[in-house]
């Protein structure tokens, strides 16, 4: 899901950086509203490490293989820190392993970071009290994990399809992209289940992490 250098026109790269800059500013404004903004930094740093490593771990899913993105899980647990964590994780993935590109860092952050904020709002829907039923928490955790990945895949697909250059056989490329959507659906289910497991574990051992 990482767009490499040279695959989208410069206007998309600049727009990606502009949107990322705006969302980063907004996230920092929201973080500043916390009574102790530094309190969640250790947690955000550890999840950034998980996001950074997840792209290197390939899960075989015949006929291809997938790697977890974990943006939905990060959004549900980190809130507005998740966008910054994903941006930093993407930067290190780019410079160390060439996953994505520096010119497309902004648009990749949009593709994976904004769905994380969506996951945050989904998961914390009606979460202001401690009266939420356990099954309801698990359903929202699954929706956050799976829905975030589906949204990322949709953004990726739309950006790629609308920017196929004329030298490529557009129909062949579109067919290949539609075929890859099947694996994204399976990946979304896996990420949703993974998010449910982690949220259920945290509910047992440290429930205060999951409260706003």
């Amino acid at each position, binding site marked *: 899901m990482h*767009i*490499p*250098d*040279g*695959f989208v026109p410069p206007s998309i790269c600049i727009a990606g950086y502009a949107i990322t800059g705006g969302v980063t500013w907004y996230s920092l404004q929201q973080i500043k509203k916390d009574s102790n903004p*530094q309190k969640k*930094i*250790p*947690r955000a*740093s*550890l999840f*950034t*490490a998980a996001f*950074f*490593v997840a792209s*290197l771990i*390939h899960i075989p899913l015949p006929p*291809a*293989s997938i*790697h977890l993105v974990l943006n939905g899980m990060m959004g549900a647990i980190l809130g507005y820190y998740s966008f910054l964590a994903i941006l930093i994780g993407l930067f*290190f993935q780019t410079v*160390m*392993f*060439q*996953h994505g590109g520096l010119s497309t860092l902004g648009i990749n952050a949009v593709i994976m970071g904004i769905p994380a904020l969506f996951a945050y709002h989904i998961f914390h829907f009606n979460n202001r009290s401690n009266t939420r039923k356990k099954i309801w928490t698990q359903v929202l955790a699954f929706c956050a994990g799976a829905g975030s990945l589906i949204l990322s895949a949709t953004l*990726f*697909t739309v950006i*790629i399809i609308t920017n196929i250059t004329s*030298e*490529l*056989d557009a129909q*062949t*490329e579109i067919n*290949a*992209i539609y*075929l*890859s959507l099947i694996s994204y659906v399976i990946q979304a289910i896996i990420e949703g289940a993974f998010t449910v497991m982690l949220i259920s574990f945290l509910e047992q051992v440290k429930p205060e992490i999951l409260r706003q």
Partner: protein
Amino acid sequence: MTNRHKLNYLASFLLFASLGFSRQVLAHGANIVYQQTPAIEVKATYDDGKPMSNAQVVIYAPDNPAIPWLKGKTNEEGKFSFIPQSNISGNWDIKIRQSGHGDIISIPWQTENVASTVESRDNMPNSSNWLASANNNYNPIQKVVMAATGVWGFIGTALFFSRQKSS
């Protein structure tokens, strides 16, 4: 008509027939020549090592990087071969793409080095030695060490911000 006249007619007919159909007769022959020329072979794989089979390949010549010089598709092994135009030196850019994934590699090509390239290829131990990679082709151990250093950096950040403040 005497026998001599008959022979003259026959000789004339055979002469005209041989002249008239000479090209057609020669066209039945075949002539195969060969020359040894260096080609570039690229191989595209996903991160997990799976070949990018039937991926689209677009090649740009050094003298015109805006217009594709050649288009094609990789084979089942993710390989694609082409012979660069011998009189164009510079960087040949090769874009390989499939379902939004792929990469671009820039291959330097010097016409005066063509002969030496052939010689050096003969000395190569096997044809699977790839000269360069679009993204640094780290081996698994290098990747693990790099990932570990990155993770340690994040853990260090977490430890720094979670330290107990001295009173």
